[in-house]
Every structure is written in structure tokens, then in C-alpha cells.
């Protein structure tokens, strides 16, 4: 089954107003282009789930797409603040459901594994459970490690996004998604969701994927749509394809600090482009892609082996 489609169709089909949308990719392979298309299609009232809500989340908030953010680190990487997110949280006009990196990971794990809760050794003594009533305690049914009192640990509830959108280096048409470099939390976020969209740098032949099945981070059975979108993770990076645009991360602190400048940026780069191809062409003009181009560092090939005889060994 061929699941390839356009970004526009994938967003129209899988992201409805009011939906819970997970956008995952930890620093690497952030699905920015998908976020931009959500802005272009003027979705409203979304709950955005993202371990590290960053630039694309800030842009979606500024474009009035977002009612609520679920996350663990709401910063512009180490390059300053997310201006719009800060303004709205400080003004009390954006709902924030906050835990921690591992808390988010465990929420995806619980979602993917259809568990009512997932235990972790965080939060004891933290103020986070006070502001997030989802962080609760469970008492172990086993004696403590010293044979004494049973331990109690915090647990987090599952998250089940309506759709998870990830970016990846490549996929086949059926939706077998291959990722290398940082693989983050993408597989768990996909399995936790009702639907999943994979945006990829390249759609490749089945034979490419099947030559290296261990490279498949998400199998086709968990993917609903495949969208080819080169440079779709900018300003984040795609290992082996293009580098991170650190200069843009630094610039975002300034752009987002000023609501007018932020609005103008959105008008020019997102609402003013028809699709990501236009955005890419626009950035090409100032040499972005030359600046972010990378050289080659091949992985080398391993051998999966092939049975030589007809009969079983």
C-alpha cells in the first residue's frame, strides 16, 4: 500500500481543530515543515505534545494554533527564550502541562504500551506534582530492597495523541521509516498515537529499506502517511543531510522577543510561502543550504547473510 501523500493533504487529513498533536524529534529531525503547514492551514485549539517545545512550537503558538502545550523543556535550546510562549505563559493565556524529559518519555512509553501508568524514580520532593496532578504515587507490592518498607514511586499517565508527526531521513512508500543519528523518542511517540505521519527527506525504493531492516525505527504498520519534504526539519538538522542552523536558533531569541517582528517573520516565511518548497527556495537565496551542507561519513556496510542451499541447514 502506497501511503505517500503531500504535506498539505496529510495535515488536512490528520490534524483537526482541537486535536492533540505530538511533534517529536529531540533537537534532531524536528518536524518543522509540518508545523508550518499546520500554521498555513490555520488550525485552532490544538494541544501540542512535545518533550521540548521549541521554535516550531513558539511559531505555532504565535499563529494562534495552540490552546495547550504539554512538555518538559520550554526553551529555545541554549540560545535564549521562546518569546511568544513566555509572553503567553507569563500572561496566563496559554495552558502548560509540565513534567520532565523522562516523564514525557514515560508518558509515551505508557501510551505505546497501553499501560494505565508508567513508574519512574523522579519527582519525589519536587514541586512538579503540585502543579501537575497527573504525577501520582504508587506503592510497590514488593518489600523494600532491604526487606523493609515497600518503596513508593511516582507514576505518569499515558499520552495518546490523535496524531504523532515525526521527521526522518527516509522511508519507503509503505511507511517503513529509517532514522540514524539521534533516534530520540520518535518510535514511542508514534506507537502512543492513534495516527502517525512520517515526513522524510527522501522516499526510497523498498529494496533500500529491506537491505537494512535494523535501521527501520518505525515499521509501516504504525504509519498512516508518508510525506517527502527535503529540508523539512530546518532549523534543526538531519544527520547526514544538513546541519543545524545554529545562527537561526540564536536569531529566534530576538525575533520572538518582539511580537511585531515575530508576526512579520511568520507572514514572510510561513504564511507568505505556499509550501515548504517555497520556504526552502527562499532560504536558498541567502546561502542557507550551502552554509548547512555536510560532507560524507559513510557508515560502512554489514552483512545480513543469505541462505545458500535450498534445504534447511
Amino acid at each position, binding site marked *: 500500500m502506497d501511503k505517500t501523500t503531500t504535506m498539505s493533504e496529510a495535515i488536512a487529513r490528520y490534524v483537526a481543530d482541537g486535536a492533540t498533536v505530538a511533534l517529536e524529534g529531540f533537537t534532531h529531525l524536528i518536524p518543522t515543515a509540518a508545523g508550518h503547514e499546520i500554521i498555513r492551514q490555520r488550525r485552532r485549539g490544538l494541544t501540542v505534545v512535545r518533550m521540548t517545545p521549541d521554535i516550531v512550537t513558539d511559531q505555532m503558538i504565535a499563529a494562534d494554533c495552540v490552546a495547550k502545550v504539554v512538555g518538559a523543556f520550554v526553551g529555545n535550546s541554549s540560545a535564549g527564550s521562546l518569546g511568544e510562549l513566555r509572553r503567553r505563559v507569563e500572561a496566563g493565556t496559554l495552558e502548560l502541562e509540565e513534567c520532565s524529559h523522562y516523564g514525557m518519555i514515560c508518558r509515551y512509553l505508557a501510551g505505546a504500551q*497501553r499501560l494505565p501508568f508508567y513508574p519512574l524514580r523522579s519527582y519525589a520532593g519536587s514541586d512538579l506534582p503540585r502543579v501537575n496532578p497527573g504525577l501520582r504515587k504508587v506503592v510497590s507490592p514488593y518489600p523494600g530492597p532491604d526487606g523493609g518498607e515497600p518503596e513508593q514511586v511516582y507514576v505518569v499517565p499515558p499520552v495518546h495523541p490523535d496524531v504523532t508527526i515525526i521527521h526522518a531521513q527516509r522511508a519507503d512508500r509503505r511507511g517503513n521509516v529509517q532514522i540514524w543519528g539521534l533516534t530520540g523518542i520518535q518510535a514511542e511517540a508514534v506507537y502512543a498515537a492513534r495516527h502517525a505521519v512520517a515526513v522524510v527527506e527522501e522516499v526510497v525504493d523498498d529494496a533500500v529499506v529491506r537491505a537494512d531492516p535494523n535501521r527501520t525505527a518505525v515499521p509501516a504498520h504504525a504509519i498512516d502517511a508518508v510525506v517527502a519534504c527535503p529540508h523539512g526539519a530546518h532549523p534543526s538538522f538531519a544527520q547526514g543531510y544538513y546541519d543545524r542552523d545554529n545562527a537561526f536558533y540564536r536569531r529566534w531569541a530576538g525575533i520572538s522577543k518582539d511580537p511585531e517582528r515575530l508576526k512579520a517573520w511568520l507572514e514572510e516565511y510561513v504564511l507568505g510561502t505556499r509550501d515548504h518548497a517555497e520556504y526552502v527556495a527562499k532560504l536558498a537565496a541567502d546561502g542557507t543550504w550551502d552554509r548547512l551542507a555536510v560532507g560524507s561519513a559513510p557508515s560502512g556496510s554489514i552483512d545480513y547473510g543469505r541462505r545458500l542451499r535450498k534445504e534447511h541447514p
Partner: protein
Amino acid sequence: MDRLRPPPAEGAPVNTANPATSSELLAAVASRELAGMRMVFAGIGLPTLAVSLADLTVAPGLEIVYESGVCGAHPSHLPETIADAVLITGAEAVLPMASLFGYVLQGGRIDVAFLGAAQIDRYGNLNSSVIGPWERPAVRLPGSGGAVEVMANAGEVFVVMRRHDPRSFVAELDFCTSPGPDRARADGGRPRGRGVTRVITDLGILSRAGDGAGEELTLTAVHPGVTAERVRAATGWDLKVADALATTAPPTDQELRLLREDIDPDRVYLR
């Protein structure tokens, strides 16, 4: 009974010159039950044949997932185990077992799974652990493996039993390895699926819709030449018989040709 599938429409009459073996019958009957399914969790042997046949007939695009972690296998040879090297080379994905069991199986992505067992009871509870008491068994069997999680998490379960006899179809299990949903709910569980909905044996087909509490397996079809009484005599409990008892359609020429020529030409599992 609405879910008892007819053979594919294009099926011609049986090739009486070379009649179907019991294995071929079981494989063909099981394959028809897979119509409309998308994700199958299967072991090796007859289930492999049934799934391969279904993929070529009633359920194109059907995907087998193996508990070893293989998804989308394209084997060069008929696999001998669920972890056969030929399942890995050329596969679409190989998942770590924690992901396979956690995300795919417990995650609720399996429509139907095949299980075997040494004993089955009227509710489709299964024993694959011991004959006799667990503490000092007369026969120690391999045990659950993944069967208890398959039963708890697959949408429904098909059981293929090559030999229908009272030692296997018992009133009381010696040990319940893999409980059906009734037993699970009585213990506070919330099973995802409907438990065993089909038991395909050398004599016929037992069915449960799997949507009511206390629902028993019922004889819904007998193979050609088999009577309901013979099946009841081979069953260790007072087996219910459907009012509209069907006779299974034997394998069609197309089904036999696919099994014999394309799927298992060396008759590894068609023994």
C-alpha cells in the same frame, strides 16, 4: 455464524485426482477466516501457511508479525522458526523484543493471533504448561512463552489443533496458562480482545463470537464426512452444536495450487 467464511469466490471444484491432505484442509480453512484482517501474530507451521494463503487470496496486504521482532518479512525460503535468518534478511523491520511485545502486541495492534496448546476448555482457556500438577508434573511442557500476552492483547485468537481428541479438549484444564477474557475479568483484568474465536481442528471448526460473558465454543462446521456426534465424542465436555451446522468447503483448486506450488513446494509443513 456470519463470520464463518466461504472459500474465495473463484474457487473451482476440488481436484479429486489429488485430494487435499488434512494439513491442506486446515491451512485453507484457517486462511479463509483471515479475510479482512490486517495484522496477524503467528508462529511457524500451519499458521504460516494459512497466513501466506490468505495474503494471496482473501486478505491481500496481510502482515505477519513474529514475536522475535520481525515485521514485513520477505523470506527467500520457507522459515523453520519464528527467528529464522531468512525472515530477517530482506525484512522491512526488526524490532527489539521489548518493542514488539510492548508496543505492537500489548499496544493493541494485532488483529488476530494464532496459538497452540496442549489443552483447551469450553471457554477457550489454554494450557501449554503442564500435564498433571504444576509442582510435580506428569509432563512438563514448554510453558507460556508469549501465549499469555497474546491471549490478553490480540483482538482475537485462532487455535489450530491437528488432533481433536478428549485429551486436548478437556472439561477442566490441568493448568490455565493463557486465560480467555472471562477468566481474566474475574481476576480484575481488562483484556483487550475477545479471546479464542475459532478452533480449527482435523474434524471441524469450533467458534465463539467472543462478545458475551460465559460464552462457550460451539461446533459451527464439520469437515466433509465428519459428523457432529464424532466431534462431540472427541471433546471432553458436552459440546454445543450450532443449529445451522455447516460443512466446510474443501480447499479449492486455487488454494491447493497456491499451497502446493507457491507456498510450501517442499511440503515442510504440509506433512
